[in-house]
């Protein structure tokens, strides 16, 4: 696709744009001018955009997510999740000057310390694209684990670390040979990697909590890797936390900050009115604090949903946090935050009044702000407005957006794109507490079990289901109560989730369009040609069998393929498989679809089975959930191997 770079405005304005966006040859000369004129020019600059792409039918939405800055700071590299490409933006002109196609659904990017290579994690291809920053071409494709996301390169540019979300580990790749030399066990949903300033450590965070005991508070971890030994040396536990995103480390290495979610999934969601659904917060640890301290970002009546990225200024005075669901970047006074954290005698993680002591600003930005990037002098903060296809530029002296870089994505808003914006926006929930994406992180799930309805504590606990490839799986909800997605997303969401009147009919239609279009992620257990391995073949035979091993016919309704039939492996009916609990109002549950069931542990309607094995080894004593008690252990393993291929 050709890219026509259009410039707007007069020469004078262009020069002013250079001052705003760029890093002039003589920084000292321009610094004073910049500070003096920044605010005055902010309004003007906002109106100025460098249109990077023609708004034609060929145009695509880009969804910028992560950024990196060249060593000379003349190029801003922008990784676009929907565009499957990386853009090189001229920081002086704001124009997209180069593009390079990468793999499918890129989710992470890092620049090598020598500035010569960009690495992009192609989450749906299980690869990393290595880009030469001079030629801006992909020069090598490296193999990773399942669904790579975050990346980090060691200080010697010799080793690449890749966080693999679905294999829950970190690939260690020798950049000389391009070969993965080992995997390190991380936590569930390993997604983001951050090296310490000296490069001795790498911090890995996870979007899913550990699979712990049923109905216990979620727990996540920050996995700490020693780059010298290339092993995991510590795991910082984050209690009552699920969903941890980016981390930042102060220049002195003494303060580590991770953006995180504190879900209150053990109490009925009726308590949204009491601010008791999600806590948007930070985990802080390191030499500056004692242990791990969790500090809230929210206010008493206003929430800053889905904290995603964190940036600490070089002077360690300020901390910026993007709130992906709230179209804002929060500004935190680090000195005040540390003082408050140290002086508090009780945990402050749930204290909504706490943030007033250290949050000193909220900067409105674009839709679904994700990645943050500070210039090396800390004067500019770039914000990737993922669902606006733009980059906001914040003047950190005044904490205002002084300009916006239009990356040139498609301008016509389709129903799909509008629906995506709705899905990721928290503005419809009471006090802006959360969005669909809080529970369906990156349009998947959250690994949690929720007490959704106001029917008493601990009644009708439900596991959060995956929402990929939903067409044909109606009705929805574990009790099958919602005949279609419009009901699911509309009245149900208003009543049980958001506790406020939410979408109008047009918005609801857009949201349904988006949700129903979420695709099936690549299945990693199928061979490339689609054929089955011998264990998978044996498992398929067990799945499809009509007789037990001693020849006794299995009643049709108790054969696997009866309930799990059709292209999505659900007959879309209700069934009692004996997994109901006394706290369930009905033992009848909606037969879940099985595509990519391998990734969505825990299992059963209430998430009580921590693994697929437990569905049958623990929760099927009377052969009510298919006949499995005649199977030997290796045969059950075969059945599971087959299910993983669906």
């Amino acid at each position, binding site marked *: 696709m050709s890219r026509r770079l259009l410039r707007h405005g007069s020469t004078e304005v262009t020069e002013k744009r250079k001052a705003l966006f760029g890093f002039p040859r003589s920084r000292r000369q321009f610094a004073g001018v910049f500070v003096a004129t920044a605010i005055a020019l902010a309004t003007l600059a906002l109106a100025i955009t460098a249109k990077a792409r023609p708004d034609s039918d060929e145009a695509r939405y880009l969804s910028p997510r992560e950024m990196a800055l060249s060593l000379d700071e003349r190029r801003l590299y922008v990784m676009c999740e929907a565009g499957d490409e990386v853009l090189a933006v001229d920081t002086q002109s704001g124009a997209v000057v180069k593009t390079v196609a990468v793999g499918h659904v890129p989710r992470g990017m890092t620049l090598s310390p020598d500035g010569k290579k960009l690495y992009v994690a192609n989450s749906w291809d299980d690869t990393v694209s290595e880009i030469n920053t001079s030629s801006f071409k992909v020069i090598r494709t490296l193999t990773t*684990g399942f669904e790579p996301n975050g990346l980090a390169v060691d200080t010697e540019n010799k080793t690449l670390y890749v966080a693999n979300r679905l294999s829950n580990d970190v690939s260690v790749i020798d950049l000389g040979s391009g070969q993965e030399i080992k995997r390190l066990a991380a936590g569930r949903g390993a997604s983001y990697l951050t090296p310490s300033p000296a490069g001795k450590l790498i911090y890995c965070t996870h979007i899913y909590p550990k699979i712990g005991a049923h109905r216990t508070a979620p727990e996540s971890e920050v996995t700490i890797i020693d780059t010298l030994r290339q*092993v995991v040396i510590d795991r910082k536990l984050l209690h009552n936390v699920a969903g941890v995103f980016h981390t930042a480390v102060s220049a002195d290495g003494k303060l580590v900050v991770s953006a995180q979610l504190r879900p209150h999934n053990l109490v009925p969601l009726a308590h949204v009115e009491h601010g008791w659904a999600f806590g948007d917060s930070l985990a802080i640890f390191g030499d500056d604090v004692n242990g791990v301290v969790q500090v809230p970002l929210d206010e008493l009546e206003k929430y800053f949903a889905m904290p995603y990225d964190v940036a600490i200024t070089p002077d360690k005075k300020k901390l910026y946090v993007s709130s992906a669901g709230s179209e804002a970047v929060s500004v935190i006074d680090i000195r005040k935050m540390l003082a408050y954290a140290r002086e508090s005698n009780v945990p402050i993680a749930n204290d909504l009044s706490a943030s007033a002591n250290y949050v000193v600003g909220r900067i409105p930005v674009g839709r679904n702000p994700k990645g943050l990037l500070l210039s090396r002098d800390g004067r500019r903060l770039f914000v990737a407005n993922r669902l606006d296809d733009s980059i906001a530029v914040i003047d950190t002296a005044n904490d205002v957006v002084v300009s916006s870089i239009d990356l040139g994505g498609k301008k016509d808003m389709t129903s799909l794109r509008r629906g995506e914006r709705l899905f990721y926006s928290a503005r419809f929930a009471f006090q802006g507490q959360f969005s669909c994406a809080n529970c369906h992180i990156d349009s998947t799930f959250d690994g949690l079990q929720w007490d959704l309805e106001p029917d008493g504590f601990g009644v009708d606990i439900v596991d959060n289901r995956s929402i990929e490839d939903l067409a044909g799986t109606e009705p929805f909800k574990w009790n099958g109560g919602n005949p279609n997605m419009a009901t699911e997303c509309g009245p149900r969401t208003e009543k049980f989730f958001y506790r406020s009147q939410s979408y109008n009919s047009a918005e609801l239609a857009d949201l349904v369009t988006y949700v129903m279009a979420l695709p099936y992620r690549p299945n990693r*257990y199928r061979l490339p040609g689609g054929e089955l391995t011998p264990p998978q073949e044996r498992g398929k035979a067990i799945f499809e069998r009509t007789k037990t091993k001693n020849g006794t016919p299995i009643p049709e309704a108790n054969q696997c393929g009866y309930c799990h039939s059709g292209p999505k492996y659900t007959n879309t009916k209700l069934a009692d498989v004996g997994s109901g609990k006394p706290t369930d109002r009905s033992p009848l549950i909606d037969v879940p679809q099985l595509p990519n069931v391998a990734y969505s542990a825990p299992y059963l309607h209430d998430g009580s089975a921590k693994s697929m094995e437990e569905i049958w080894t*623990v929760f099927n004593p009377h052969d009510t959930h298919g006949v499995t008690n005649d199977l030997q252990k290796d045969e059950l393993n075969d059945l599971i191997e087959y299910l993983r291929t669906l």
Partner: protein
Amino acid sequence: MRAISCQLSAICKVPSRFALALALVFAVKAFAATPDMPRFRWENFTTANGLPDNHVFTVLVDGDRIWAATENGLGLYENGKWRVFTTADGLAHRAVLSLALDKRTGDVWAGTMGGLSRISAGRIDTFNQLNSGLSNDVVYGVAIQGDYVWTATAAGASRYNTRTGQWSLFNERNTPMYEIWTYGVTVGPDKVYYAVWGAGVLEYDIKTEHWKDYNDPDGETEIVLFKDQGLIHEITTSVSYVDSILWVATYFGDSRYDGRNWHNFLTKDSGLPSNFTNQVKAIDANRAWFSTDKGLAYYDGTNWAVYRPNLKTGAPEMYVRDAEANITNIAVDTAPAHNYVLAVDFQGDDIWVATAKGLSHGIRQK
């Protein structure tokens, strides 16, 4: 003179002049011929100084750290202190039977009476027969081969792929394993070997993925009719594969196999203090340590050394048996904690010894 020939005492009753001359000859010969076998100063750990339990099934050296698998928890000795991991920490079971270190990742894998645990930077992940594809909860042996974790369980062998989470089970239905009580496992660059209690040794070829069994040509009898014509006995307890040499421990003697020839070791024709061997652990193609119920034995390819508390008096004891079957007592001040030895591991020139009554650190003296 520190080394005194045992044969000397046997000739003490002969006429004095002749005896003196003969004794001198023997003494000189014995002194000259006594092999220079490793000597240790033994430091012993029990519950009195922090070990979680005195019954130590196995020991694992992890750099400067020592892991002790005991009947009541997993002990970690580091910087002079013991830390104990229990079921409260997530350990699969209190009784830890086997240990393996993944040298690439630093993770320690522990086979227990209740499943398999991975200890990774303080976090313990547990795999058992209910929550995973593990074949059985009683995990007698564990070994690491690249990304695979092989386990020897009471119901066959399991292989866990740490990259994909997939399990492969090996038992009587897909291998020549006619008994499924697997007791030990060892891996090399090309082969995986299993000690199958009552069914000899199983060999897995990593390249071809084929299994082969090695059995006692005498069958299940305890009489050795055909020595050196095959595995010494079917009741195998341990295997060690180093430098393309397979060493096998059984309750009725031990074997060494170079891929073509077998060589067996029995008390009657070797320096083994007992045929009842719990573990064999090789250093290289020619040297190995044998953990028996009557002491710890070292074989250097020619000579033997035995380290133990005296079986009657409990006094520290070390003796050397040379190629001519001459036995020389070595005066020692210390000994391993108990003569019932279950396993060893090496820390440079030092050795750590798991016994039924404590853990011992053999500090090399010469």
